């Protein structure tokens, strides 16, 4: 019995390794021992980068609750990094001390701006590889509370950051770095003649919103309540980009998304302002996480986002000032 399975295993492991042979620099799953329960596989959350695998080693602190947090609160720049207000890398010998991987969990609405800021950051700190996971803020909080490893969390509203803070995941006080306002996204040309929230409730208009747990969903609910409109949405999505897709693809007539999503859509959708949006402005907090494997680089990344460089990028994308 055992020998049979070994033979099969050998064949399949060989196949797996054969595939492994033609891989460039990707993650380091121990293909040689498929059923290994050793931490070498467990920690295979290694980025597909050429970084040394040491960055993926699990934090060896006994448990997450007693993890030493040597980071300063994110609002004050740690001494190892350049002051964030400079916005340039010439003022201090930055990058020399920072290395490894920084894993950032960021709200889906931040994708375009954070992609830019990540590129900027990696240019300033050549030794650092930034990995960003974009998803609905509520999904990200769930993953963090379930033990997903990350260095930085950027949420699209206070509520989800509070969830993370209450769960003891955050170190220091989260910094608000941007605000965002809702718009009604419609097909270019506005064929349904949408003018305000009330026109979303008309029959024949399929409206898509975010689920109430997601920041864009709770903001939508606040705005709709302020307008006194009862909406029967065609779908409740898990992240704002899902709503945008539904409208851009024509699967829905209208969707409640952020201003920044509309301006970032490249003309795929058109934005309609409505007056109740002022009642539901979202604030975006960012924070270094308590269990961050790379706290110094994490703090440096937060500094870039909250600093002049980040603010310039965010404003250009249509975000409001904090």
């Amino acid at each position, binding site marked *: 019995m055992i020998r049979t*399975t070994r033979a099969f295993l050998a064949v399949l492991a060989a196949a797996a390794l054969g595939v492994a042979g033609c891989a460039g620099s990707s993650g380091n799953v121990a293909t040689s021992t498929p059923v290994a329960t050793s*931490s070498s596989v*467990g*920690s295979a959350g290694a980025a*597909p980068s050429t970084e040394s695998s040491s960055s993926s080693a699990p934090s060896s602190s006994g448990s*997450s609750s007693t993890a030493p947090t040597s980071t300063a609160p994110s609002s004050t720049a740690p001494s190892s990094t350049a002051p964030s207000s400079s916005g340039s890398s010439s003022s201090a010998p930055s990058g020399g001390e920072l290395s490894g991987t920084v894993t950032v969990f960021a709200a889906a609405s931040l994708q375009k701006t954070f992609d830019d800021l990540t590129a900027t950051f990696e240019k300033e700190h050549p030794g650092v590889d930034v990995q960003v996971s974009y998803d609905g803020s509520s999904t990200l909080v769930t*993953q963090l509370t*379930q033990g997903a490893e990350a260095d930085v969390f950027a949420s699209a509203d206070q509520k989800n950051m509070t969830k993370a803070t209450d769960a003891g995941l955050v170190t220091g006080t989260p910094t608000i770095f941007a605000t965002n306002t809702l718009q009604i996204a419609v097909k270019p040309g506005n064929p349904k003649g949408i003018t305000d929230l009330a026109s979303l409730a008309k029959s024949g208009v399929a409206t898509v919103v975010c689920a109430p747990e997601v920041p864009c969903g709770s903001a939508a609910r606040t705005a709709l309540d302020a307008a006194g409109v009862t909406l029967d949405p065609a779908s409740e999505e898990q992240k704002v980009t899902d709503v945008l897709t539904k409208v*851009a693809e024509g699967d829905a007539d209208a969707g409640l998304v952020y201003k920044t999503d509309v301006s970032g859509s490249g003309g795929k959708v058109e934005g309609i302002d409505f007056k109740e949006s002022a009642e539901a402005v979202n604030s975006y907090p960012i924070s270094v996480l308590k269990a961050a494997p790379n706290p110094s680089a994490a703090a440096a990344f937060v500094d870039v986002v909250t600093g002049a460089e980040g603010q310039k990028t965010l404003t250009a994308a249509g975000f409001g000032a904090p």
Partner: protein
Amino acid sequence: MVPAGLGIALLLLPLVALLAKADWAQLPAALGSRPVLLALWLSLRCGLLATAVCLVLGIPLALLLARREGWWIRLLRTLVTVPLVLPPMVGGIALLYLLSTQGLIGQYLFEWFGTRIAFSTLAVVLAETFVALPFLVLTLEGALRSLGDRFETVAATLGAGRTTTLFRVTLPLLRPALLSGTALCFARALGEFGATALFAGNKEGVTRTMPLAIYTEFNGGGDGTDTAVAMSLLLVVVALLILFAVRPRRSVW
């Protein structure tokens, strides 16, 4: 005849629509892009590993279920079938509560060894194994039952030991079922979405397999639609290849 025609239409027209939507000129570029290659490579690796684990655990389990009798075997078979009928999302949540850093077992793994299983590549392999294993076990068990144990009995009377019998009689007889079962198991693992999304998350290069990449690209606000379509086509081709590989002997081809 009309219902049959409607059935065929329902099964085939979506694929036709997918083909019609494809931007053939851009296809090579889309398939060669970094997100696609990362997802494809991860999917292949995890799918092969999950299939290997399924074989190692599945063959003995199938032999046990097919060759023993009794109420506890019937109970065991029911339990093995559960993940097959379970929505994969439920499997994902269950795996999370078992192996996350606060999970039933995961908390000790984390406390003693610092091992984080959830949201790692290993989690993808485990999620895929969880959904694909029953598939393989039931395929093999059915084949073993229809084979009967006559040949094994004869081999035993001729003095063959258990290991010899297994290698020289049972497994060769089982080969067609083993091949098709393995291929279908691999296909099932490759297509796994729900359990992976909840238990492994969605991190590029680490846990973002092809199905998750399709979901992510398609929902990226319309930017990645073409990439999502390209990847979907690739998976359709893979599915066809697998079906072609496991086609029955007396097939139409």
